[in-house]
């Protein structure tokens, strides 16, 4: 029997806490929910959790998950839905967040994994927000593209290291939308909001080079690139950017978890991956952050200098590591 907690911010601004416990099923219902004084919300919670489970590939009938909300949410409030779904996943080990989860989001299509929006105003720090500008569907927690959306977006993570206390994994997200059919002959438009002109030009050049190597994707897409933290230095994010772009364009095998990559190149048009600086601290950072299903990609030059036992430690956690000299298969 194990127990975890997930929180959500209520309409009144106070925190709601969902406690999830897992225990042997013993002939009972697969999901049991309780909300003090509000059986209707409990029923909706059971429905939400059951629907969201349809997006999981593995089904286990041996366990029962009991979810309980510490107080009844306000009339009409639905932001607790995302927290309930995540609590159900965390307690079964389907989703393994690095820190305590505070999540707000609701959906009318949980069975598709879609998260339609949130009622919460503003964007407080450290809160997982459902909706188009936050987490638009459950797969996006691992950076995967939504198989049902008209705009394909994928994320990849890269270690940000400066020796300060803000070191951690940053993400880059590539969204692609097909160019209008009218056969416009223009350069592939790439927009990168929130960064300076130099960085914008660099991102556009990297994408152009990598797509040239790929042989496809030129003149097809309108591209938007976003960074989780737009203020950083260096170019070791390039490999993560290229991987996110390939995933968004549906041209890369998928990882079950996140793709965590570091690497740069002076020749993306040849698909080459070159070494970057700060091997030791970045490896330590990755070893700390990687979780089950994650795929770690490092430059080939790092292979012989990797910290001892890193590969095994990652494998023991369910992540895998590859040192690559070129993008693409093998």
């Amino acid at each position, binding site marked *: 029997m194990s127990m975890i907690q997930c929180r959500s911010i209520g309409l009144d601004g106070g925190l709601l806490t969902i406690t999830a416990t897992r225990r042997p099923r013993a002939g009972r219902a697969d999901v049991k929910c309780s909300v003090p004084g509000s059986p209707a919300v409990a029923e909706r919670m059971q429905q939400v959790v059951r629907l969201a489970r349809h997006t999981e590939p593995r089904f286990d009938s041996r366990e029962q998950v009991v979810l309980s909300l510490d107080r009844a949410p306000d009339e009409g409030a639905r932001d607790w839905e995302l927290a309930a779904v995540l609590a159900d996943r965390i307690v079964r080990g389907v989703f393994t967040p690095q820190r305590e989860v505070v999540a707000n989001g609701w959906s009318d299509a949980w069975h598709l994994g879609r998260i339609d929006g949130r009622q919460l105003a503003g964007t407080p720090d450290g809160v997982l927000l459902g909706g188009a500008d936050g987490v638009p569907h459950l797969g996006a927690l691992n950076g*995967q593209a939504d198989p049902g959306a008209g705009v*394909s977006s994928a994320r990849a993570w890269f270690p940000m290291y400066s020796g300060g206390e803000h070191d951690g994994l940053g993400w880059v997200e590539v969204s692609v939308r097909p160019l209008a059919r009218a056969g416009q002959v223009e350069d592939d438009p790439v927009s990168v909001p929130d960064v300076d002109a130099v960085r914008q030009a660099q991102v556009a050049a990297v994408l152009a080079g990598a797509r040239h190597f790929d042989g496809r994707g030129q003149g097809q897409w309108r591209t938007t690139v976003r960074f989780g933290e737009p203020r950083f230095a260096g170019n070791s994010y390039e490999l993560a950017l290229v991987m996110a772009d390939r995933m968004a*364009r549906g041209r890369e095998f998928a*990882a079950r978890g996140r793709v965590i990559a570091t690497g740069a190149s002076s020749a993306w048009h040849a698909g080459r991956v070159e070494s970057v600086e700060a091997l030791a601290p970045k490896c330590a950072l990755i070893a700390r952050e990687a979780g089950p299903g994650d795929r770690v990609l490092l430059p080939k030059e790092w292979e012989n200098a990797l910290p001892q036992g890193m590969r095994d430690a990652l494998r023991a956690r369910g992540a*895998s590591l590859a040192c690559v000299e070129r993008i*693409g*298969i*093998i």
Partner: protein
Amino acid sequence: MLGSLIKSTLESTLRRPLRQPEFDASRLGSVAIALPAPNGLTVPAACAAVLVDRGGRSRRQAAGTRIAAHDGETAWCVHPGPYTCELLPFAAAPEIGLRVHFAIDASDPRATHQRFDLFLASEAGCSVELAGFVELAQTALQRELAQGNLELPPCTTLDEWNAFRTGFNQLLYTRFGVTVDDCVPVDLGPANDYAAMLDARLAARLDAIKAPPAAREQAPGAAPVPEAFVPACEDARALRRLFLELPCLMCAVRMAVMPADQGRFRQHQELLRRLDLVSLAVGTMPALELAAPGQPLAQDEQLRRARHSRRAAAALDEAWALLARLKVAGEAPLDTLFDEADRIVANLETEAGARRAISAREVERDSELEEA
């Protein structure tokens, strides 16, 4: 003289084989893998005949012989291939695929049953088209990848690729009885243009918003209508599969593991015992449309029962995939695999029990009582 001529002509007419029943073998080996064959047909060159009786027992006849089906036997003409197909390992990545060359396994003298023959008996229904078969294989592959039982990560290295190939070959052999001759990653960009797909998706969404509901219903071929779920058909198909395949699966599970110690032996025995009980439950399953003898069951409860049957059949698919993993695994990961087996058998038990129940309430009644 004339008399003897007439006599010899008559004799040769009598001795000549009976007129061949009509059978079009031209599609075999290219777009069709197996076609139902009429009794009395001479098996075409390069093909084999598979005859299956009502209980699922099968036998084969070689090319050139004439199909002589006993009472209750169904015959298929099977072309061993080779066949070529393209599989999509990830639905979210339509521009990268695998080109697979495979062949139907010749009958293996060591095996007590031929897996492909079992596939014909339990899943084929009528004919086995290449396209339909490829879809089944793709579903099996995608599920194994999604569960992490096979790995095909971004920037796959050579070692990872080889491990994948071993697992994939064994999966297709264990699940369908086909051997993979070759498998290479392939760029499907020209065939599956993702930009065009997304464009169509966006256009469809726009149309759905613009067009009035009446016009939307009449728009032909706007979106492929999903195959209707007919409870009686789904239920019959799923139960037939469970009925035929569980005994063969048990037999294979028994042989796949050689228990190293007493603890493992007990675990193995327990697993087989539970599978046996599931098999018994399937064999004695009450009719879909009856709550009790002579008592009809409500339509929505029939639908619920059929859904449980289908989920049980899905667990059966997972069990075949697990058997493939057992075969390639060494001693080391056996703990994980036995835990997986425990999960799959528990799912089979749960679904079979729920299929038997006459209402959803009954399934969860025990818990209500206990917690009240």
